[in-house]
């Protein structure tokens, strides 16, 4: 099976979408940030110069341009850069794009795609380390995807362009250089389906985005100790694939949720709530959450590491979960 980096697959998805659909254009082309993969976008810039515009430093204006254009029948992809910059465009994303279809009684769809680089990227300090996706989950009307692999980012971005809804694609800065298997002919992947990235009988680890890769690393270490963890990669945060989560917990009876959003009201909280509400009887032990601490992200490396989920913290949480059990009644 061929292998590609996340960055290359993302660029391929943009290139193929531009090739196939004349309604597609890019507003903002620094999709790969400041990292070493950024030159991969040159091929897109060279081949589609008329369909790329790099806006002024005006995230709200750029987002609104994409939204208004989508309302008028084209399919823009708006790159907002670092995830925290999306806050500048919050009104446009959550209070224009997300509500238009509903408040027009289904008459004004908004087929825009937003892309942002989220996460603790290394020395991002408090203002450039955000993961806004859990906040966005509180805006009904948005589709939100958080891919973790090359095949997934390709497939989910292709679907985002085809969707008639506003879609937010979050890419973790640390995923860009990670290589993974891709099928020879990469395909769109429908929203709303989690993917079991590793099967296991002892415990379910639910993750998304870069935390899927971190969870897979933790699972490999656990396997050396005889603990078989199943890693469920959500891929799509909205809509959320409750069925796959519940089915996995049904097999393992134990759940650790890993997420880089802060603890309170995060993705992990939502997954835990879904299982508590619909799968409580499946659980043999309390659910554990491994998330970013409920503090801003500090700059200095040891402090940054202290507040960020990693494989060691996941392993600790898994072992604690395996050591616990509900009292027998």
């Amino acid at each position: 099976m061929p292998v590609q980096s996340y960055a290359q697959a993302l660029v391929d998805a943009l290139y193929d979408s531009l090739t196939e659909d004349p309604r597609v254009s890019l507003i903002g082309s620094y999709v790969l940030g400041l990292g070493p993969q950024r030159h991969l976008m040159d091929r897109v810039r060279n081949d589609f110069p008329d369909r790329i515009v790099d806006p002024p430093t005006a995230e709200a204006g750029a987002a609104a341009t994409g939204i208004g254009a989508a309302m008028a029948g084209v399919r823009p992809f708006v790159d907002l850069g670092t995830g925290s910059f999306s806050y500048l465009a919050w009104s446009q994303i959550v209070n224009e794009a997300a509500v238009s279809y509903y408040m027009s009684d289904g008459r004004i769809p908004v087929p825009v795609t937003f892309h942002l680089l989220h996460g603790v990227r290394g020395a991002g300090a408090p203002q450039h380390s955000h993961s806004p996706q859990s906040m966005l989950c509180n805006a009904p009307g948005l589709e939100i995807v958080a891919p973790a692999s090359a095949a997934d980012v390709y497939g989910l971005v292709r679907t985002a362009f085809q969707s008639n809804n506003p879609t937010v694609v979050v890419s973790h800065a640390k995923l860009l250089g990670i290589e993974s298997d891709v099928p020879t002919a990469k395909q769109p992947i429908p929203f709303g389906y989690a993917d079991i990235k590793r099967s296991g009988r002892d415990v379910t680890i639910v993750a998304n985005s870069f935390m899927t890769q971190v969870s897979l690393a933790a699972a490999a270490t656990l396997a050396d100790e005889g603990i078989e963890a199943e890693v469920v990669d959500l891929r799509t945060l909205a809509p959320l694939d409750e069925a796959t989560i519940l089915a996995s917990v049904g097999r393992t009876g134990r759940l650790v949720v890993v997420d880089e959003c802060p603890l309170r009201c995060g993705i992990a909280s939502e997954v835990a709530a879904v299982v508590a509400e619909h799968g409580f009887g499946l659980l043999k032990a309390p659910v554990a959450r491994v998330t970013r601490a409920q503090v801003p992200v500090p700059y200095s490396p040891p402090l940054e590491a202290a507040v960020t989920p990693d494989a060691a913290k996941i392993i600790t949480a898994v072992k604690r979960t395996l050591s616990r059990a509900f009292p027998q009644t």
Partner: protein
Amino acid sequence: MSEPLHEELAWKHLEQMLLIRRFEEAVLRLSNGKQFIGHYHLYIGQEATGVALISLLEPRDRLATTHRNHGHVLARGADPSRALAEILGRTSGLCGGRGGTIHLSDPDLGFISTSGIVGGAISLGVGAGYACRQRGEGAISAVFFGDGALEEGISFEALNIASLGRLPVLFVCENNSSGSWAPGQGYPTLVHASSDLCSIAKSVNIATMPVDGADVSAVHSVATEAIALCRAGKGPVFLEAVTKRWPGSNPLWPEPVTGATDLRMATGEMTPSGEHADWLSNHDPVLRLARTLAASDGGAARLAAVDAAAHRCIEDAVKFALASPLPATETAFERVFA
């Protein structure tokens, strides 16, 4: 001074302006009669701007508007009955009762959005201009917003992006804050360090055209030029239509301070008097146009007939809207996603 309009076109404009006026007066009555509970904004005093400008747009053009949208939606040709039903939250409303007065829209007529967020429309209208250019069909985007939108930072971003891209966007700033209301008294009026709103657009190299927004001939003339520039690919144009705010829009909730518009003030049978005599004599766009046309041969009789037709249309719309059912509760969960 602009050229006077061809008389038949002026009558056509007056028909629409009176229809909007009678519609808005009905909305006010229905609100005061507790037929709907939400906050709302009336277009009274600005009818000349919306009617003259929108009459010059083509069917392919796109529009974005604001909380003060009723006049724009009607001027574009929306069904007054379905518009009123929307304001009453009825299932037969233009948006099924999901948007209401603040989000009244008719997408079939080219409206891309009716945003109730100040500064919302101006930025989305730039996006519509982006789409118009990408589609290459010669359409333009006309976006309506109030003077207050220029207090929002997003407006600067929108103007800058439109100018950088030379996008076909007609910015229609309806400045209804001319004249002075005491700050802190009633509905907010413009709070801006600049006394020349056109200068904001000029600062990013956008052509600007100020106009008396209550003068239908002047709006027609200036908008003709502005639309031609946009359509010719000469970039965006900023048109500032200045009106003196209708006194009934000064309180936090609209009040019928000038009563139902009495056209005897246009035929000379009645002289405006009282606290609002100046507005009625000099600033009411409906009365201004009606006075001119009533003075023509047979004008008074025709004016009465036009007004009677507007009244009949709005009475029918009120009956239709009040008779329309409220939406079924289970539909609240539908159409979140396309």
